């Protein structure tokens, strides 16, 4: 039995400590390499926010320019109207809704890692959860822009909220669109609270470890005066666990509601009761791909090999393989059901217009990226190879974007009557907005890496303590 093989409870935060029996297979790499002292962990994990590297500032400037481009494109859209996008009848939903679904799907892995894996006491969650949560927040922010600007008159967004207006009109809650507004805003709020609450003890670390007075004051302000008394921790553990429990059904509900935007319509290719699970699996799939896309470079640049180990990478690769197969299975069932239903319109969309129609190239590219690429992770060597993981994750990101694009556009462009068929071609503004949100996302993410401890310090200390206890117990067993 190796030192790390004892399965530990997730940390006292939730379970109340005490080791649990059971051993993981010998071959598993550890979740932490070496046994750094608390002081070493603190200084290692605070270094990225105390020392600015030149590339970091340069990338911030670059993505900042991209963000300005996004704002310019959005302003133009708001002034000129959404006709500047390629959307028209019949394809009235295209890039914007594709981007919305893609970004919001990416957010799901953050909540999955931070909430569901917390409840399942998975140790390998600990060092990557905050990066994943930050990714969630920033991805949901991008997602929120699209429905907002798709309104055409974004300044009237508050009409979705039931407030007593002089118009005496209320929103129609039997439509899926108000559900969407409720789901996305709740998701953002709860994710934010969860992220911030997890951050407070680490902001206190940043406050106490900072040498400069202004840093102490700023971190001290956001740390709210956290002192870490046993009483504070006892409430903290319970409430953090509660927030995790509350965030967990959100992982499932948000994309379920998003899928209902499509499933409640009658359009061939959209009108399907299997959309909710299919969308949720796809969301977690794309989210893990994005976490890997971000974590692999961060691990290398900041030299975090000791806390983000091969175990983390391998487990995420396994998640990709698992959710990738759920997505593949969904594709198969979707096509089978279209054929089995006997409905000629469903059959036409799934069996003719998608695989052989206008966008056939993108449909096959989607199948390649989402179904074929992930099969490489049957190999343990591939699961532990950062380069293979990174490339595969990028391809999966592309594939998942294409999935949403194909789903939305091919269904709209070939509906019931051939007389109303059409085609969709994106405009440069569509492209500018999509790449603009990528820039904005990276900008926020780089800022996050620069100003807050992005690897949870107090949780890693707790993990370190638990591992030390396990080492000692194993040592006693050996000597006994």
């Amino acid at each position, binding site marked *: 039995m190796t030192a790390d093989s004892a399965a530990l409870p997730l940390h006292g935060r939730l379970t109340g400590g005490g080791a649990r029996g059971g051993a993981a297979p010998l071959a598993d790499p550890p979740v932490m390499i070496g046994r750094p002292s608390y002081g070493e962990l603190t200084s290692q994990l605070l270094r990225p926010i105390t020392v600015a590297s030149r590339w970091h500032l340069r990338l911030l400037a670059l993505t900042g320019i991209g963000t300005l481009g996004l704002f310019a494109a959005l302003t133009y859209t708001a002034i000129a109207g959404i006709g500047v996008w390629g959307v028209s009848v019949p394809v009235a939903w295209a890039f914007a809704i594709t981007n919305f679904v893609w970004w919001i799907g990416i957010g799901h892995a953050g909540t999955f890692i931070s909430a569901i894996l917390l409840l399942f006491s998975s140790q390998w969650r600990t060092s990557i959860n905050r990066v994943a949560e930050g990714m969630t927040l920033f991805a949901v922010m991008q997602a929120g822009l699209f429905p907002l600007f798709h309104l055409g008159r974004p300044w009237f967004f508050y009409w979705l909220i039931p407030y007593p207006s002089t118009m005496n009109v209320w929103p129609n809650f039997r439509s899926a669109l108000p559900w969407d507004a*409720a789901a996305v805003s709740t998701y953002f709020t709860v994710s934010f609270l969860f992220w911030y609450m997890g951050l407070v003890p680490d902001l206190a670390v940043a406050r106490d470890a900072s040498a400069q007075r202004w840093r102490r004051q700023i971190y001290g302000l956001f740390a709210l005066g956290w002192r870490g008394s046993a009483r504070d921790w006892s*409430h903290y*553990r319970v409430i953090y666990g509660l927030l995790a429990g509350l965030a967990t059904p959100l992982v499932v509900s948000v994309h379920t509601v998003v899928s209902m935007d499509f499933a409640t319509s009658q359009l061939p290719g959209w009108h399907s009761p299997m959309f909710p699970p299919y969308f949720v699996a796809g969301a977690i799939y794309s989210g893990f791909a994005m976490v890997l896309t971000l974590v692999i470079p961060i691990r290398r640049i900041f030299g975090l090999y000791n806390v983000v180990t091969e175990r983390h990478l391998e487990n995420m690769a396994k998640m990709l393989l698992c959710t990738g197969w759920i997505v593949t299975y969904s594709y198969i069932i979707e096509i089978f059901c279209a054929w089995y239903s006997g409905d000629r319109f469903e059959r036409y969309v799934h069996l003719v217009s998608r695989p052989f129609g206008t966008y056939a190239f993108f449909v096959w590219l989607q199948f390649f990226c989402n179904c074929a690429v992930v099969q490489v992770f049957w190999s343990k060597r591939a699961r532990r190879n950062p380069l293979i993981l990174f490339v595969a994750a990028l391809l999966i990101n592309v594939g998942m974007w294409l999935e949403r694009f194909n789903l939305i556009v091919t269904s709209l462009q070939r509906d019931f009557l051939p007389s109303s068929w059409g085609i969709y071609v994106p405009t440069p503004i569509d492209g500018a907005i999509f790449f603009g949100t990528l820039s904005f996302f990276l900008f926020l993410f780089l800022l996050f890496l620069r100003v807050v401890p992005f690897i949870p310090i107090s949780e890693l200390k*707790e993990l370190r303590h638990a591992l030390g206890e396990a080492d000692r117990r194993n040592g006693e067993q050996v000597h006994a």
Partner: protein
Amino acid sequence: MPSAWMLAEFDAPERILEAAVELRARGYARIEAFTPHAVPELEAALGIRRSWVPRIVLAGGATGAAFAFLLQWWLNGVNYPLNVGARPLFSAPAFIPITFETTVLFAALTAFVSWLAVTRLPTLNHSLLDVEAFNSVSIDRFWLAIKSSDEHYDRGRTTAELRELGALRVLLTPELEQ
């Protein structure tokens, strides 16, 4: 003097745990421990009961559920009946998604606000934050604090007891030093 404390620094969770158990056995009642990460055993040793916040959160969630459901029923079913394809005006299944989301939203907000309330955050001017050495509490040290209002508290004796239990150093908060 509400927050006059004697502070003792320890270098490991095991040591502070032993000290806390021993001091409680000797009759000290007003003890508090400060640690860089959660040490659940310490909470048990200090006799801290499990947080009662979940009950408030349940109430918050239930309020959210009732609020959202009744609101939708009233707005779409009674106050502004909107006939869409002759579907029922009060269609409970269609109201579930928003009811669910609001339940979670209210529960989460209640949890967060109760957390701030029960742990009295934000308190940016706590006197412990003025003790320079106490900064190590969030980094790698474990501090035990005894209130000067404790029945057993005696400056000389308590200091000796803490040292004997392995405290690296013993300090007083500014109020006590005067």
